[in-house]
């Protein structure tokens, strides 16, 4: 078994410590952000007893307690699975975040399903033509792609889409289409939901709307994966076992498929995993600010704006767990396919 119990135990322990650290840090930071959560929790009271309402709200939120007590209570609630109600919207915090989280995750997964194979193909193809014009072009392109600001590219893509086709890829799905066809989100992943329900019109519409932001976000993983895989393949081609295989007259495609690819997959997975968690920030910016899609980006902005500290901290926790989970999964996959890796 490539994964030891010791590893899992250490990871879980580390995750708990990191989550506690994130809560403490976020809580202290949010104390200094504008806005009084008690005013929001009291419902922006306007009557003569507004002050009384705010004071009661302060007590209900525990904001009248010393800061260390507040933090301890928050940590207790997190680990007992009770994040409470959103201060601004009075609905469960988990409900606010989960729907946004699935929206962002759907966009990211879709992006990486496109970006990683494309980046890998570009890298391998470039390495096999090392020194050619194509190789130089791909190398330069990968640097440009990896360093392109995604929000800028997103705006350009939206503009081109609207000016050439008249279609503005705004939102996740057409409200009218979704309502008129009885589309009912089940998992929150609209593409998957549409397929499950056999609603191909909504599937197509959601697909058309996810492609532009996915293109914008994909430039970074395409650039990174292309660059890394090109280097790895180029290095692998100079290895003794490859040269021996060539000398033995093994076919070129067989060498690449069975020897070269096998050796580069683990590092490519690792770099893709790292890029994946990094891209969530890109996704949060692009989805809300450029394409008007719901997601974690708009939830974060809104929670800060409305002094909804429960949602802000819960979001930080979700992201922390997401980072740790992705990295753990990447480690496990790597250990499964590379016998040299023991975790």
């Amino acid at each position, binding site marked *: 078994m490539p994964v030891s119990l010791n590893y899992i135990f250490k990871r879980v322990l580390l995750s708990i410590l990191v989550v506690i650290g994130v809560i403490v840090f976020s809580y202290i930071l949010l104390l200094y952000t504008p806005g009084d959560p008690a005013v929001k929790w009291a419902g922006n009271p306007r*009557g003569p007893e507004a002050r009384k309402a705010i004071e009661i709200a302060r007590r209900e939120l525990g904001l009248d307690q010393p800061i260390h007590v507040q933090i301890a209570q928050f940590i207790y609630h997190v680990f007992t699975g009770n994040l409470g109600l959103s201060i601004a919207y009075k609905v469960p915090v988990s409900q606010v975040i989960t*729907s946004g989280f699935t929206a962002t995750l759907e966009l990211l997964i879709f992006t990486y399903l496109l970006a990683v194979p494309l980046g890998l193909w570009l890298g391998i193809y470039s390495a096999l033509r090392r020194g050619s014009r194509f190789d130089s072009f791909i190398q330069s392109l990968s640097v440009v792609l990896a360093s392109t600001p995604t929000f800028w590219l997103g705006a350009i893509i939206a503009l081109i889409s609207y000016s050439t086709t008249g279609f503005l890829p705004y939102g996740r799905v057409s409200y*009218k289409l979704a*309502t008129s066809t009885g589309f009912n989100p089940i998992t929150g992943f609209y593409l998957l939901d549409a397929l499950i329900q056999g609603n191909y019109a909504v599937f197509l519409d959601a697909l058309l709307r996810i492609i532009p932001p996915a293109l914008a976000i994909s430039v970074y993983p395409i650039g990174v994966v292309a660059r890394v895989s090109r280097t790895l393949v180029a290095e692998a081609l100079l290895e003794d076992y490859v040269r021996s295989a060539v000398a033995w007259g093994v076919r070129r495609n067989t060498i690449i498929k069975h020897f070269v690819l096998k050796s580069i997959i683990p590092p490519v997975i690792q770099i893709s995993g790292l890029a994946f968690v990094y891209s969530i920030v890109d996704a949060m910016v692009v989805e809300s600010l450029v394409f008007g899609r*719901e997601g974690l980006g708009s939830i974060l902005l809104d929670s800060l704006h409305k002094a909804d500290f429960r949602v802000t901290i819960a979001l930080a926790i979700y992201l922390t767990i997401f980072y740790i989970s992705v990295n753990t999964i990447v480690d496990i996959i790597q250990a499964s396919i590379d016998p040299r890796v023991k975790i």
Partner: protein
Amino acid sequence: MKRIILVLIALIILVAVLVVVLVNKPSLVTPSTTPPSKIVVYAYNDRITGIDPSIEDDTGLVVLGSIYETLTYYDYKTGEVKPRLATNWTSSEDGREWIFRLRNDVVFHDGSLFNATAVKLSIERARDIYRSSGRGAGYIWDALEEVEIVDPYTVKFKLSYPQRVDILASAAYASYIFSPSAIVKSNAANYTDRKLEDWFNGGNAVGTGPYRLVSYDPMREIKLEKFNDWWGWRYINSEKAPDIVVIKIETDPSAQYSGLLSGELDIASSVPRETISNLKKQGFGIIPLPTYHNFVLFYNTKRYPTNITDFRLAIAHAVDLNRVVSEAVLGMGSVASGVLPHGFPGHIEGLTYEFNLDKAREYLKRSGVSTPIKIELLYQIDYEETKKFAAIFKTLMSELGVDVELNGQDWARLKDIARGVWENPEETPHLIVADWWPTIPSPYDYLYAMFHSESKEWNYAGYENPVFDELITKAWEMEGVNYTGALELYKEAQLTLYQNAIALGLWDEIRPFVYSQRVYVPEEALNPMYTFVIRFELVEVRS
């Protein structure tokens, strides 16, 4: 090895999907089964803060206004109170007892019957929650001692002092009637039990309105469905009314504009003002609704130099409000006359300070304040128009030798800073721009909140005047027996504010509601008293 990887990946995906399915419980009240034929999508510009019919006092109005009804309805064009769930009413001579006769043909969305018990429960809940916690707009029922059930379709409001209950019953908040069945459905012990509030805010409703709640996501969209058993369909042609209404939360005005152009939206509440003429050219319908949402410049009366009346008057006369309306609001507003908006009960003309720089300099000289002097203006950055106003104001004040330091904040921070005028006036900006919209059609709504010495959350002028307090309190109590006399007292109170330049009314907003050719929105569907609420029963779907 490959198989292990594939199985691992498949397992991860399966677990992820299962977790998401289990965690992401949809907040549907009742899933719609039949695909509707007439759908209208209405873009609203803010997220919904709650839909408890007794407590909600903010953006939830846009939803509550369609699914619940009040006993009466305020007709802003005539200033009259009209019947809704009540058919008629009478009051005693001393204005302390009001008898309302109720419609006997009304059912709630769950099929339960509307009657006097529902009225008693709904009104007393709003009052009691306010009394115990200060939350909601239940303060409008301050005088209410009891709602007595005379018979199943007659109620008597008993008051501790005279009030216009017919006006209070038409309020935008705290007057909605919900079914007593909500208590049972929410497993609440009584009507003040928090479980009931959580049940409502969790996306549940049992009103009598023309539309019933289908799904509720306060951050994204709210779906309403035509309630076929609504009593009012007998009087309104229901054939053309929408079957489904989607209230789409779209906070970005540009996105509302794009949504109209692409056909995704049918009605928009907040397109950028500069796009109005273009939309008009393209055949979109525009209703420029004069609203009761007004903008006021408060003077910090507790800090030098804005504690000097002549200095305040100097500033008032140096503000060119016509320019402000033209450049900051792009014509979508009317120059304010006093602090009550045009068309609102008790509004009086002639309370606009003349733009006259000579007069302003004269007052400045009289104030003894030597220039150049620096003062601070606090304004809200969430509104494009207040940002533009701040820039214009700074330029105008430079004519007087007054250097204005601009302090733009979002609403939450502005409120934090502005209420400091009571505890720490020397650290609070000299000038604060704030906005207001009413809960009830009474001048008391504006005058109490913004200028009464006990209203320390909203009186950003830090204004304390026992005579003024007495005037408006007396007027409020007089409304029930001598409405005309009460309006006279409110007029006197406004003159006091005007003469002492406690605040400068800037503009009353005119909000352009835009609709596509696919629908027709009659003017009667909108009412400034219930801002942003659209009476969808009057909307016609053309195609």
